[in-house]
């Protein structure tokens, strides 16, 4: 099972390497959205510091939603998904591997780029670290729950917009605790509680997300 997920992840990474645009688009989108806010609301440092975490997290959510429709769509269109379903590999392994590859290609780069965004907003160093940590714990949730959303909207016309409507409400807890962790650091409160809740949410979504995605994929290919 581990071998199966390893070669699926390797294949996803290889595919991404051959069409770098898809990965870069998401990252550039994240950076651009997060950089537009200071231009819109003005350069008042206290203002910016207070809204930094919220902006970074919302930009990350939108970037994730932008990337999610592609999670299964290409494999669905060319028949690869069908082959995965009739293969002896458990479907849950396929879904988990694809979600992991999605995180490596979107969540991880977003998290690593976030401290740079934080600098634009004049965040102090400890808050930058917490922002990075919150994104590292929180973005896998986007891939896991997003996989379920992507599977549910597979083959639906205008599925991208529907996917956003479907998964963004599910991302609310991640946004609240993720941004909350950074904000509490700014006012001198230990962010541990927020990060722990984020971790708990990750644990729950790693159970629910792939399972729901499997059920939805079976229906989509019926």
């Amino acid at each position, binding site marked *: 099972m581990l071998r*199966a997920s390893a*070669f*699926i992840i390797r*294949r996803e990474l*290889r*595919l991404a390497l*051959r*069409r770098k645009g898809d990965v870069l688009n998401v990252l550039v989108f994240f950076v651009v959205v997060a950089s537009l806010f200071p231009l819109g609301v003005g350069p008042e440092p206290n203002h910016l510091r207070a809204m930094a975490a919220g902006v970074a997290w919302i930009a990350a959510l939108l970037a994730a939603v932008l990337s999610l429709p592609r999670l299964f769509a*290409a494999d669905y*269109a*060319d*028949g*690869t998904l*069908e*082959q*995965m*379903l*009739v*293969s*002896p*590999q*458990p479907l849950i392994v396929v879904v988990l591997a694809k979600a992991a590859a999605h995180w490596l290609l979107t969540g991880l780069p977003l998290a690593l780029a976030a401290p740079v965004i934080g600098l634009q907003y004049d965040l102090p160093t400890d808050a930058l670290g917490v922002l990075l940590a919150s994104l590292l714990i929180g973005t896998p949730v986007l891939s896991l729950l997003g996989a379920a959303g992507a599977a549910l909207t597979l083959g639906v016309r205008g599925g991208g917009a529907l996917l956003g409507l479907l998964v963004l409400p599910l991302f609310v807890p991640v946004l609240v605790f993720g941004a909350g962790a950074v904000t509490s650091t700014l006012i001198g409160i230990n962010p541990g509680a927020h990060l722990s809740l984020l971790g708990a949410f990750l644990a729950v979504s790693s159970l629910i997300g792939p399972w729901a995605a499997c059920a939805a994929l079976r229906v989509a*290919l*019926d």
Partner: protein
Amino acid sequence: MLEATALACERGGIRLFSDLGFALRAGDLLRVRGANGSGKTTLLRTLAGLTRPAAGEVCWRGNAIGDEYRREMLFLGHAAAVKDELTVLENLEFASRISGLEISEAKIKNALECLGIARLADLPARYLSQGQRKRAALARLALAPAVALWLLDEPFAALDDEAITRVSALCAAHLAAGGMLVLTSHQDVPIEAPDARAIELQG
């Protein structure tokens, strides 16, 4: 070994066929015929375990469809499952690994040779013609002779005469070695088989 009993399938609320039953043993060839929309593809997808039948069941060695069945079955549908970004070789490597076969590069090259596309091995699939793409998909037949049951949906579509001969020879060898084959086709391609049958689906 493959048994379908009282099978009925629906598509979009329309009953395609009902009370369909057959049993396949080693060396059997089953041709599925019928007009467009009569349910040939649906029947094959039902046998592959992708589509749930409205009634009846499919059994393999007396058991319901499960992991054991999936290891012993190869399904090739309309979609070639060939990725544009990967080379022909990489595509086949992934296809065989996902179906649980560990296969060396030399073996894959042999399979490509079997389908007459060995020189395309390192070409990204993006540059393949429709027929070459189909050949690349069908090269899996040459990789999986030991897989007991082949379910092929329109394997001869988009192929030229030379490729049709190559594929029918592969099918005949598979049947002679005790394999089973279910295929849908509009062309009546001759395949040597110890026991050949046909079912006609009424649209």
